[in-house]
């Protein structure tokens, strides 16, 4: 079966317009979903998330993922090897750029959800608002990185992120499980809490 990998790749690159995005999503099938997953794995490796996605053999993981990748349509000959790397590299960039595209202006043409802080808070509201802005900027880093970092709680502005001790992970997992269970039953977040839990557990398992 011939598959339109160029469209899928463009979709991941955030280079599809609204119409093409809808078409790609409409046509996605199980094979495409698996391909997306494989590309994401390559992306993790290329993006320096090896500790999270491919913990042991960084290069071997990359090589395997590339080897498993079918040849992109309409690319051949001398370009072959180069094109495969190009696919991987473009996906790597996508972990940031694609997201900004999806989450950016296309969806937020109307009023951003910045809220007034007058009545709802006390005098610290202004300060909290400022901090929220800074926090929002920090959030633009790829989430694969944030899943691994912890910042010192000592309020030092220059504190460098550092890795959480891996031995702590099971405890955090049990907490995530309990929190997700509560959230699913008592919040209006629909299926989000369980999807989040599955995704986080899969990430932890990949380490």
């Amino acid at each position, binding site marked *: 079966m011939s598959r339109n990998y160029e469209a899928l790749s463009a979709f991941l690159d955030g280079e599809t317009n609204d119409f093409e995005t809808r078409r790609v999503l409409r046509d996605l099938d199980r094979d495409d979903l698996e391909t997306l997953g494989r590309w994401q794995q390559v992306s993790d490796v290329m993006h320096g998330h090896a500790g999270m996605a491919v913990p042991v053999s960084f290069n071997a993981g990359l090589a395997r993922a590339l080897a498993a990748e079918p040849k992109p349509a309409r690319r051949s000959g001398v370009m072959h090897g180069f094109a495969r790397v190009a696919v991987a590299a473009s996906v790597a960039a996508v972990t940031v750029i694609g997201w900004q595209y999806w989450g950016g202006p296309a969806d937020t043409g109307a009023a951003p959800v910045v*809220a007034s802080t007058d009545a709802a808070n006390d005098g610290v509201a202004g300060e909290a608002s400022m901090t929220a802005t800074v926090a929002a900027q920090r959030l633009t880093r790829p989430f694969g990185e944030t899943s691994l970092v912890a910042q010192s709680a000592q309020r030092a502005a220059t504190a460098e992120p550092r890795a959480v001790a891996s031995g702590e992970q099971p405890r955090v997992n*049990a907490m995530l499980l309990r929190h997700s269970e*509560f959230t699913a039953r008592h919040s209006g977040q*629909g299926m989000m809490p369980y999807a989040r839990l599955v995704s986080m557990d899969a*990430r932890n398992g990949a380490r």
Partner: protein
Amino acid sequence: MMRILALGLTLTAAPLAIADSLPAQTLLERMTEATQELDYQGRFLYQLGGEVSTMEIRHAVIDGEQYQRFTHLDGRLVEVLRLGDELVCLHPNGTLTRIEDPDQNLLSFRQRLSSRIPEQYNVLVDGDGRVAGRPTTRMRVAPLDNHRYGYRLWLDNDSHLLLKSEMVDASGLALERVEFVTLDLEPGLDESDFELPRVIAERALETVPASRSDRIHLEAGWLPRGFHAAEGDWRRVTAERRPVAAQSYSDGLATFTVFVEPVASADIEEGVSRIGPTVAISRVAAADERTYLLTLVGEIPQPTAERVMEALGVKVSTRP
């Protein structure tokens, strides 16, 4: 001010919308009912920042009980199953964790939400869209302060199921997204579709009797407006660890949970970590000559979480 703006948006958006133009409140009620009562099966993308996971969901009501199964389709197998009152998580290492929750007496916040939208949010219908090949109604849930995130929702016009959902920060940046790519509303599911796979080991997060847990009390010195203590319990991982107390808080949409555990010394890493909308903060606190580790896990902005943590106190009541 925000409410007036939102009202303005609602009025502007009205001509664009939706054939039968149901009010936001009614749409949310129908969404809640559909999510709980319909049988469905579908595949969806779950995006956390730039990372995409592909998952399958099955949901069925069998003999009055809700059965739900989430399966991670790429990478290693992870599943979360809700089987009536029990939640089961199948981990990628082939082990399994169970949480039983027999206490179903509390009216869930989700049910409360469908009867009244929390006053810390504005909800408005702002157009239509298309998800998984199906026409949808788009809604916005915008917070009125900086202590919680907002949502963008796409509801199926036919079934009212939530087909796409984004949690967004104050700048409008999506922190996570669920988006269906396929949906089957007549999946013909039965109990065999929710059978547990074989596992190499099992553990349970058991509840511990209150008599052992009533000595530690959390005191929240500051909570964002609208948040209330919702539920507390005391559990431990079977025979592995000491019990950990938990207290959850919610404003009806956003939630966070604070865990309290006694630790041997203060030489424990305090810190903040974050993935998507979820923040986790650990802080050591002393009470009654003992040291406790407090950990907050929740989907609230980090500055808010830090402020809650700073004002949290642990109180130990004397043994009778």
